[in-house]
């Protein structure tokens, strides 16, 4: 059965992969911005960062996706700003007129961004305070301080939790199937079961293999990074 429907699984895997790569990029950007906000010396920025994390980390992903798929349009947005020239050519689904792929992308990025922010912030907090104080003492500005002293060290401590966040995100991407993202891996499997009357268990084995193909290489990579870090310390 897995061999017969290889096309469906491979196509689904490819779509999920595209979705995850784009969402990961979005989440990393959002998370980095939020993290900088949260550690910045300006109180209003800190408030914004904290509010963002508090909301999106504490609301179920389904709700976030629901709001992005049905709340954004109510506000009059079809998320057309995501039709980025160039990227649109590589991922044609970004450009089509049915905007649910874009909505799901926004939802997943916003949700994961909150976790990315906290992973980054924990990395920053792992840098001994003396480092930042010393940097300030030699006259570096806040930005320079982050850029040359704190973030390079924070990155090392944050990379493993970040990896876990991204792995969790890949698994969470399955929920998009229920918000109009067609052709994604879980959706394809679901479709095989309900429209072709394929047996349930082999189909889910196929879906599992698909997700493992994405998450296991990532885990292995993280293990390597962690080991290298252990050696250099």
């Amino acid at each position, binding site marked *: 059965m897995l061999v017969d429907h290889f096309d469906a699984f491979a196509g689904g895997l490819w779509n999920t992969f595209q979705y995850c790569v784009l969402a990961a990029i979005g989440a990393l950007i959002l998370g980095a911005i939020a993290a900088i906000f949260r550690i910045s010396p300006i109180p209003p920025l800190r408030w914004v960062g904290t509010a963002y994390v508090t909301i999106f980390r504490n609301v179920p992903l389904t709700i976030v996706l629901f709001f992005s798929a049905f709340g954004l349009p109510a506000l009059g947005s079809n998320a057309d700003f995501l039709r980025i020239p160039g990227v649109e050519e590589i991922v044609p689904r970004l450009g089509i007129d*049915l905007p649910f792929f874009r909505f799901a992308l926004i939802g997943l990025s916003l949700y994961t961004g909150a976790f990315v922010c906290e992973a980054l912030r924990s990395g920053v907090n792992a840098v001994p305070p003396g480092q930042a104080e010393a940097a300030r003492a030699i006259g570096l500005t806040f930005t320079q301080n982050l850029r040359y002293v704190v973030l390079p060290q924070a990155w090392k401590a944050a990379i493993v939790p970040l990896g876990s966040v991204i792995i969790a995100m890949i698994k969470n991407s399955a929920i998009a199937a229920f918000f*109009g993202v*067609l052709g994604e891996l879980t959706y394809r499997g*679901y479709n095989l079961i*309900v*429209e*072709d*009357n394929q047996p349930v268990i082999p189909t889910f084995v196929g879906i599992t293999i698909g997700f493992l193909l994405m998450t296991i290489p990532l885990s292995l990579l993280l293990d390597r990074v962690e080991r290298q870090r252990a050696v250099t310390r």
Partner: protein
Amino acid sequence: MRMKRVAALAAAAALALAVGACGDNGDSDSGSSGTSDVTFEAGTTMEKLNKAGKITVGTKFDQPLFGLKGLDGKPAGFDVEIAKIIAKALGISEDKIEFVETPSTVREQVIQDGKVDIVAATYTINDKRKAVVDFAGPYYIAGQTILVKADDTTITGPDSFKDGTKKVCSVTNSTPATNIKTYLKNETAQLVLFDVYTKCLDALKNGQVDAITTDNVILTGYMSTNEGMFKLAGTPFTEEPYGIGLKKGDDKFREFINKTLETSFTDGSYAKAWADTAGKYDKNEPKTPTINRY
């Protein structure tokens, strides 16, 4: 001290269970004693259900006019009334019917797993489904049509989707979704599928899609709950026979349901079921379909 508290809790739980079990026994006893006015051949599903004095029916809980769970917690609609007619013929009283929610995607599964005895849930009879479950009926012939916003004049029928600009919504694992695909130029850009129709309604209200397509009865149901907002475009372009789903191979039970439906067509109970539910919004008297004994 802590141990004692745990023990006390366990005892209390055991007691509650025992009491509950007693209650259950009492229930089913009184049920079977009140339903002995019909008898069935031993070993059949009818006999089993009649003896048990209760039946489990899968229906929709979100389908206005056919199966919609109201604030009182009881589903109401045409499918529900049909289920009551069948239950009555089995000698089971109305309050002994247990309704469970069966959205489109799980109908075959719950029948195969034996979680329900029958499914009456706007269930179109088709060959793919016949391979895994059996159908009695049809008890109603619906037809697929298209719902658009009340002020939309650009969509007149399924052919309006052929130029590739109009977008349409339906639900996964539904016959309408498969049917409409033949009219689409580009499936990825024109078709979006959700798990429930209410999401389609939101997408239509918000303007991401231009139309929703499914059986006429479902669409009129949504027209009834959103008065004046939507209209039907064109006439039905398919025939969707609704059947009662049951376990594959249970031919005696199927024939029993078929006979029950035929009786209801003539004795007025079918017409009454229609008039009390969908007939309030759909003024066309349904043509009583011919039972399909495939």
